[in-house]
C-alpha cells in the first residue's frame, strides 16, 4: 500500500544570496516514515517550513494527494491534513497542557459561530486532547501550565499538539531533541505506531532512533539532496559518512 501522500517537487528557496534548498524532491507515502538528515544548516527545517506553508518556496511545487497546494497558507494546509512540530518549542505557554492540545483538536471542528457553547464542554475535542497527551507521555500533567514545564516536557507537549490535530501527514522537526533517553525510546515506539496509517517526515539527529524507525532516508547537504534510499544504503554510503555521520560510529 504505497500511496504517495505528499510530494515535494523541485523545491527551491533562497534567502538573499544563500540557497537554503535547491530542487529538493521528496515523496512521502502512507505507512512509511521518511527521515531527512543532514548537517546543521543543510536546509532541513527550511524544507519542512515550505511543506507546511510557513515559508513560501522560491520555486517548485508541493502536491498533497495529487493536488497542488503550493499557494495555500499554513492554516489551509493544516486543514487538509498536514501537521507539523517545531524544532524550537512553539506552544501556548500561558495555557494548561490540556488547553494546548484541546485547541489543537478544536482546529478540526472550529465551530466559531457557536458562541453560546462552552469550549471546555465540547466533548470530542477534550477527549481527543486527552488521548494525545497520554500518547506523548505527558499523562497526569494535563492541568500544569505549559510555560512552567521543563524543557523536555515542553518538547513532549510539542508532539502531543501535532497528534491532537489528527493530521494524515506529519512533519516532525527534531521531535526527540531535548527529551531524555527514556522519553526518546517511548517516542520511537509511538512513531512506529503512528506511521501505520500516516505519512511521516522526520528530521532528527538521533541516529539510533532514525535507523530504528525510518523506511527511507534522504540526506541533504548545503541545500541539495546528497543521497536518498533505504537505511542500509545510507548507512554504508561513504559520501553520507563523510558529510554527516562521521566515520566510525555508524559505519
Amino acid at each position, binding site marked *: 500500500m504505497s500511496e504517495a501522500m505528499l510530494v515535494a517537487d523541485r523545491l527551491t528557496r533562497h534567502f538573499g544570496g544563500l540557497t537554503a534548498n535547491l530542487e529538493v524532491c521528496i515523496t512521502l507515502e502512507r505507512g512509511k516514515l521518511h527521515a531527512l538528515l543532514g548537517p546543521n544548516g543543510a536546509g532541513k527545517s527550511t524544507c519542512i517550513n515550505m511543506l507546511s506553508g510557513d515559508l513560501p518556496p522560491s520555486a517548485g511545487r508541493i502536491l498533497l494527494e495529487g493536488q497542488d497546494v503550493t499557494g495555500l497558507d499554513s492554516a489551509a494546509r493544516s486543514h487538509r491534513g498536514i501537521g507539523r512540530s517545531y524544532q524550537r518549542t512553539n506552544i501556548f505557554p500561558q495555557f494548561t497542557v490540556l488547553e494546548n492540545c484541546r485547541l489543537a483538536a478544536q482546529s478540526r471542528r472550529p465551530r466559531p459561530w457557536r458562541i453560546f457553547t462552552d469550549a471546555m464542554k465540547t466533548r470530542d475535542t477534550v477527549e481527543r486532547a486527552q488521548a494525545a497527551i497520554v500518547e506523548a507521555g505527558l499523562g497526569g500533567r494535563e492541568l500544569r501550565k505549559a510555560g512552567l514545564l521543563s524543557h523536555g516536557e515542553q518538547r513532549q507537549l510539542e508532539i502531543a499538539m501535532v497528534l491532537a490535530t489528527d493530521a494524515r501527514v506529519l512533519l516532525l522537526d527534531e521531535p526527540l531533541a531535548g527529551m531524555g533517553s527514556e522519553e526518546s525510546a517511548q517516542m520511537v515506539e509511538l512513531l512506529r505506531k503512528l506511521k501505520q496509517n500516516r505519512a511521516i517526515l522526520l528530521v532528527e*539527529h538521533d541516529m539510533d532512533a532514525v535507523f530504528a524507525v525510518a523506511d527511507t532516508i534522504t540526506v541533504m547537504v548545503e541545500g541539495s539532496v546528497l543521497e536518498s534510499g533505504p537505511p542500509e544504503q545510507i548507512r554504508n554510503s561513504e559520501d553520507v559518512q563523510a558529510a554527516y555521520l562521521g566515520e566510525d560510529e555508524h559505519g
Partner: protein
Amino acid sequence: MAEMLLEARDLHTYYGSSHILHGVSFSIRKGEALGLMGRNGMGKTTLIRSMLGLVRPRHGTVRVNGDDMTRAKPHRIALAGVAYVPEGRGIFPNLSVRENLVMAARAGVDGRREWTFERVMETFPRLGERIDNGGGQLSGGEQQMLTIGRALMTNPDLLILDEATEGLAPLMVKEIWKVIRTIRDTGIATVVVDKNHSAVTALTNRSVILVKGEVVFDGPSEQVRQEPALIRKHLGV
C-alpha cells in the same frame, strides 16, 4: 578549599509553592569535568539556574571561588568566570552573528585569552559563513554553535552546558565533545547536561544524578559506566 570553583550547599528552590530542589549540594573543582544527569523535569536546569543567581533558592548557600555569592546578581557570578549555555539556546535574534559573539567577549579572570574570535571561527566554520546574518535567521544547530562560541569567548574557568548538543548533527556533536576535552585539558572546568549518557560518562570524571530534586548519586563517572544498573534505576533506560 581554594580549588573549589563552584560550591552549592543544601539548596532548596521553589517555583511559587512547588518545591523543586530538596536540599541539593553540589560542587565542582578547578579543571574537573562533571556530568549532571537526570530524567526530564528532575531539576537539572533549576539547579544550574539556582547556582547562577537566575532563580533565588529559598534556602542554602552558593560560593564561587570561595566567595559567598548566594544573593549575588548573575553578572557578578558570570564575571567570576562562569559561563552558561542555556537549554533551548539563548541567542539574541536582533543581533548579527558577529555581534552575538563579540558583545560580551572578554579575557578570563586571570587574563587568559585563549578563545578569540578567530578560534571560534575555526571551531565552527559554519558560523563564519553566516557571520553578518541576524542571529534569528540561523538554523537550530547553527544557533547552538553560536551560543557555545559566545560562552567560550568570555574565556571562563567554568563552562556550564545545558543540553548543548541538542539539535546538533552527529559530526558536530563529536566536535563539541572534542572541544570539551581540549578545554578540560587546559584546566577549564565543565558541567555537562546531556541525554547521551555514554558520551557524558566517557567525557567526565565525575557524575551527579538528580531524581526529583535530590542528588541520588555523586561519584566517579567510571562507576556509572561500569554499573548499568545505576543508569537503569535512576535514568530509566
